[in-house]
């Protein structure tokens, strides 16, 4: 990967590209400005399956080995591995009320 392109990737994505080039990864791409149709076509041609385009942020999925091509586009400023979201359901430790003053919803 060219150093200029590599510099656009965050470290987790760089590691995935090196370790698992055939895996499909979710990424967030920062572009110089809101990408026009031609630039979107270039993103797609580089292998990015475009999801959302919100201002200068583009989400999408891409086979890891194609990430360098994506990063090589001059209007692409950064490519970041999409972060995972923790499972939203919280822990719920409950037990029988032993306290006579238990605050039952008052």
């Amino acid at each position, binding site marked *: 990967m060219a150093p200029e392109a590599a*510099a656009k990737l965050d*470290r987790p994505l760089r590691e995935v590209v090196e370790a698992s080039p055939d895996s499909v990864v*979710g*990424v*967030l791409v*920062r572009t110089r400005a809101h990408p026009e149709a031609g630039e979107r076509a270039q993103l797609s041609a580089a292998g990015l399956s475009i*999801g*959302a*385009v*919100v*201002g*200068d*942020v583009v*989400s*999408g*999925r891409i086979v890891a080995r194609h990430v360098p091509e994506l990063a090589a586009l001059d209007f692409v*400023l*950064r490519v*970041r591995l*999409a*972060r*995972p*979201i*923790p*499972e*939203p*359901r*919280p822990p*719920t*430790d*409950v*037990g*029988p*009320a*032993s*306290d006579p003053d*238990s*605050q*039952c*919803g*008052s």
Partner: protein
Amino acid sequence: MTPTRRFLLALALAGVLPGVAAAQERAYVDPLLRPLMDPVERERLAAIVARMPVAAERPLDPEERPTPAPGLPGLIAMDVEGPAGALRVGLLIRVRDRGAVESLRAAGAEIGAVVGDVVTARVPASELERLARIPGVLRLQGARVARFMHNLSMDRIRATPVRAWDGERWRGFTGEGVIVGIVDTGLDHRHGDFRRADGGTRVVGLWDQHLSGPQPPPTATDTFRYGHFCSPADIDASECPHRDTNGHGTHVGGTAAGNGLELGPDAVSRYTGVAPEADLLVVAVILTEDRLLEAVTWVVGRARDLGRPLALNLSLGFTTGPRDGTGDFDRAMNELSGPGTIIVASTGNHGSNHHPWELLKHGTGQAALGPMSFSFDVPAYSASQNCQQDVTVFEVWYPGQDRLTIGVRRPDGTRAAAAYGELVVDTGAVGRIIIENDLDPDPDNADIPAWIAVDGCGAETTLTGEWRLEFTPDVAESGRRYHFWMPLTRFGPGQARARGGAGFDNRYVVGSPATADSVIAVGAYVIRHCWTSVVGTVCGTDDREAVGDLAVFSSGGPTRDERIKPDIVAPGKWVISSRSADAEVQQALLVEGRQHWALPGTSMASPHMAGAVALMLQEHPDLLPGQIKAVVDATAIQDQFTSRTYEAPTASPAVPPVVPEHWWGPGKLDVDAALAELGYPADPATIIVQVQPLPPPEAPVSRRGAVLPMLQLRLHVEGDEPVDVLSLGFEASGPDPEMRLLLLRDEAGPGPVTPGDTLAAGQVPAQEPRVVRLFPEELVLQPQDTAWLVAALEMSGAAPHAATFRVTYLPGQTRTVGLESLVTNQVEQPEAPVAAAPVRTTVLEPGEVFALNENPIRSNRVIFTFVEPPRRAAIYTPDGRLVIDLLERRTPTERMIWDLRNRQEAPVAPGAYLAIFEIGEVVVRERLLIVRPAGGGS
């Protein structure tokens, strides 16, 4: 009011106004009482109340099975009296003085307590309207029924006073017309809380990103080609395969927008969400950043395509990132937010300082203070088979102008360190240390991210013991703080967690997307610890904060760039809401009916705010995120808890001053006050129209330009909003083909008519009676304002002598709009048309024998009127040449028309002419000036 108006002939009119109620001050009436002013509604409610047990009248045992609250009677104290079952209602009445109390008593109110200017009373519901008009009565408020409720949170956020289920339908602020977006684990779309009373779904679209099938409708800007989309028709036909197997999203959705109908129409108020009439757009989201962004983008785009305001809830978020609002996701949230598109997010469950346990996850220091160290403890555990499974990770951000050497010291005293630009991997007997201090400054904020991981790889023992993080400044130029967080910690199969020690705290732990500028970040406070579940009374077993205090898990702010977060705090421990039938749920969490369950978390707090946003957008659909933040900021509840600081006993000396806002923001959400701050839709003002005929003038002349006042109108606004009078209707007739009906401002008000500005005018085209609607260009009456108007006919001069004119006010044609409530045609006025006295005009003044309609003559004819038919009528040139003898071919009459043609039927030239008439014994010589050639139009 008795009219005091005197007219041209000072005709006394008092008492002759047809059907007009007396206009006087009217008290503000609680919106929940207004249905009681309708006799049909009273009868219906009386029947409900008659069937009610008296439970609402006595204190309830908290353990007692709650009596279903049948709508409005369950909210407002009511009973029925006498064999006829007359409905009575409990009131809190605000009065101006004691005199009003006596008036109330005289009007049949059963007075209870009088405390200051507030009176409690029981009154016949049929008398409400009359009570509201008693002088000195300022406000009628329905006495709320105090009841034990499971869904305490609606009371705590003061949503209960703003909307009510009356047994059949919702009233008040309900989120109607607004979309609540739920991007979460999905939604149990079969749950009754998400269906309307008619059984139809309230979900206007559901996209399950995990399934495959029909794809979601493209929005104006984006197309998403994965997942499975369920339309409302799919859901109603039971053809939507989505299931919320987690249950989190259904709980969240129920809090924001559940309508409580799952338990039936008589139990609605027990588990109602904040916005029970909002529609829902739902995404069951894949839990990665890219899919979450696509989910939010789709919901925003879809709501915009539907033309609906959106309150989108995100009870999820990230545990890593710059936490200063500059990250990609936060930027995208700012981009997607806008007028009527509001995103609300939970701050996260990373703890508050008053509970210094293993949840302590953050530390901060300052390069200028020199080297600093922070300790954390790894508990005893059994090593995992995979050494990477025993791990703790720290994320570090420090100012780009500074340079730090980051060190980690093991429990055995060995140490690894990385100066800026270095990536260090150091394996020792007590685990491996990885320090990535070689990352470039983030281009968005110029700060430097770094990572630290300690894991069990290469270790000869477990990592148990006290570890230290050491920060040594090499360059200290910024004067700003550095921060580190512990986003991941787990050791052994039991996933034991490292505990932050000296220097750790729980500030700055609000995560994205709550850190975005435009996103409303919501923290959580405690409303209960225990509840009656299907297996008996149970309690949460974690720390017992006082009820009303901040929940122990509620993430503290501010953001790393020192912006205050959270933006508001709402109930989050424990909240009872809708249960997904497809989720595995502990019995102890289920409450009576098994369709609702208790959960804790800022996830549960956030939808309270999202629902509140939906209520705000209902009346103000273009609100901006900043406007909503300002409103909740200004109206938040402050109490003894919201002034607490929760300072960590072991916090770093470098931490900034502690302020309560870092945990509470402005305080606790108050929906009622927020809506009031925005401005309730006004109690619709009534415009009272009084119309009275004006006495005919003694000698009304019909010459061109003459104005005949026919009717006087008094318009008075009773209420607290301006009212725009859009149109008034009349019927007019009279033999003047070119006359106009005018609506004039009566400058004098009560007193002789003094016609002023013309507000509107309309042609009355034919002699037959015609409806003429007048549209005043600007007739806006301010609250309690009165306008005096005159409807008048303007003569064209074409009317014959002794013509009769009529004007009648048509009440059915009146159109008004309240400029705040937008309620139209709230008019109190005569039921029947009000006719002006017929006016018989003359063209001759007293003593005159002759008149003409205009001179100079600008039209294509001139009309002569005589007191009797003339014996001679001829037109001459100034030098005496005959132009035409009007009697040559016509029989003389009292009204004769000359078409400005000569004997040869040719138009006469403009100029001066002489008319000579012989009327009785009088000879009249009139000089005519024709300034416009005949045939030139009128």
